[in-house]
């Protein structure tokens, strides 16, 4: 009975990827950074769902979509607890947790408007650091830290 009700909350997909265990308050940021608003595939999402591990979680299901590592790096930065589940013909074919990379290049923007990466044609480069448990991007050029709430991706 319980399982059935859970199924109904967010529809199953035949082929594609499920992003599970997204912190509930990060769901919309993940949707934004993956640019899902522009997707022409079936996309389902839910948030504030019950989770045994995390209390409340968000989930996204995207049909016919499998992610590249540059995309999973972005997910890891805002939702480090996320799990990626690949589905083929209704079966789970692969289940991975996202890994926070040590460095990221090109995919994120520096929040400092006076940084050389925002003024000249210079690709961004960051070290990923953790301060008091929060992930931040330390800019290789201007040495300023971009916090999670300021992260904008290319």
């Amino acid at each position, binding site marked *: 009975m319980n399982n059935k009700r859970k199924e109904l909350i967010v529809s199953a997909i035949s082929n594609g990827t499920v992003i599970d265990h997204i912190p509930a308050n990060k769901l919309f940021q993940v949707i934004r950074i993956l640019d899902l608003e522009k997707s022409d595939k079936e996309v389902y999402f839910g948030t504030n769902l019950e989770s045994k591990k995390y209390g409340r979680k968000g989930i996204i299901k995207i049909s016919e979509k499998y992610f590249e590592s540059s995309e999973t790096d972005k997910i890891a930065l805002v939702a480090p607890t996320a799990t990626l589940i690949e589905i083929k013909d209704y079966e789970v074919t692969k289940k991975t947790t996202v890994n926070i990379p040590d460095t990221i290049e090109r995919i994120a923007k520096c929040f*400092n408007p006076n940084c*050389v990466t925002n003024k000249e*044609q*210079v690709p961004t480069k960051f070290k990923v650091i953790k*301060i008091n448990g929060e992930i931040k991007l330390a800019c*290789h050029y*201007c040495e300023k830290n971009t916090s999670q709430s300021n992260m904008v991706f290319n």
Partner: protein
Amino acid sequence: MKNRSLISINDYSKEEIMQVLELAAEFEKKPHQNLLHGRVIASLFFEPSTRTRLSFESAIQKLGGNVIGFSSAATSSVQKGESLKDTILTVCNYSDLIVMRHPVDGSARFASEVASVPIINAGDGANQHPTQCLLDLYSIKKTQGTLENLEVTFVGDLKYGRTVHSLVIALCHFNTKFHLVSPVELKLPSAVKRHIKEANLQYEQYTDFSEVIPKSDIIYMTRIQRERFPDPLEYEKVKNAYILDNGMLDYARENCKILHPLPRVNEISTNVDDNPKAYYFEQALNGVYVRQALIAAILGLK
């Protein structure tokens, strides 16, 4: 250090910092040495400066070298829309070393990645100013006889002052005790305080200036800039709160010295200038020796 750019004070280890300071002491004893004969140093100041540019050019000329360059972006091809990369690649063809100041944060690091000659960062926006930091360290060592175990007080704009950030980070090598005096709006950023914490050193923050004077071996004054305040009223409230007057130094330690990266506006009363504790003009002179030392070390001439 040979052939390596100096972009951020973090690029140098404690040992390398000490090497530069020792070499600077040699140049102080003998400033005129013909080490740079036939060498060309480019001095690219995309943003105006008095002390930094002139002390670099003085350092180069005392070493017998030649200087080429410009003292504002207005007199370079930047005005025609040339990119920083193109300017740097061009100047590399004409020089053995580039000294550069630029208003954009991170511009010096980027320049060092495209340049075929070493770059010395003479200030990149609000980010780093490592040669100022080295001359500050030299001034502290010279006046106190050591860099170890001192109590250093920073006063004024600790939020935006790049010289403050670099010096605090560098002093973390030397078991310093930090006293940080500023209005609440201009406190030292947490990213800089993290360095103090990681080094397991102590710091205290104050909004009142007078109580820390008797505890200080060095008082490092900075200018509070009007343009840092979104609300002009806020600036008016704090602008006169951190002015050092000669009378306040009655309770200072015997060995205490006053430093200031200059330019000064009104944060040090002119009646302090004749006090033997005032050291800011000698501090500016030390910049020449430190820059001679850096140029000689980076070009492998010492």
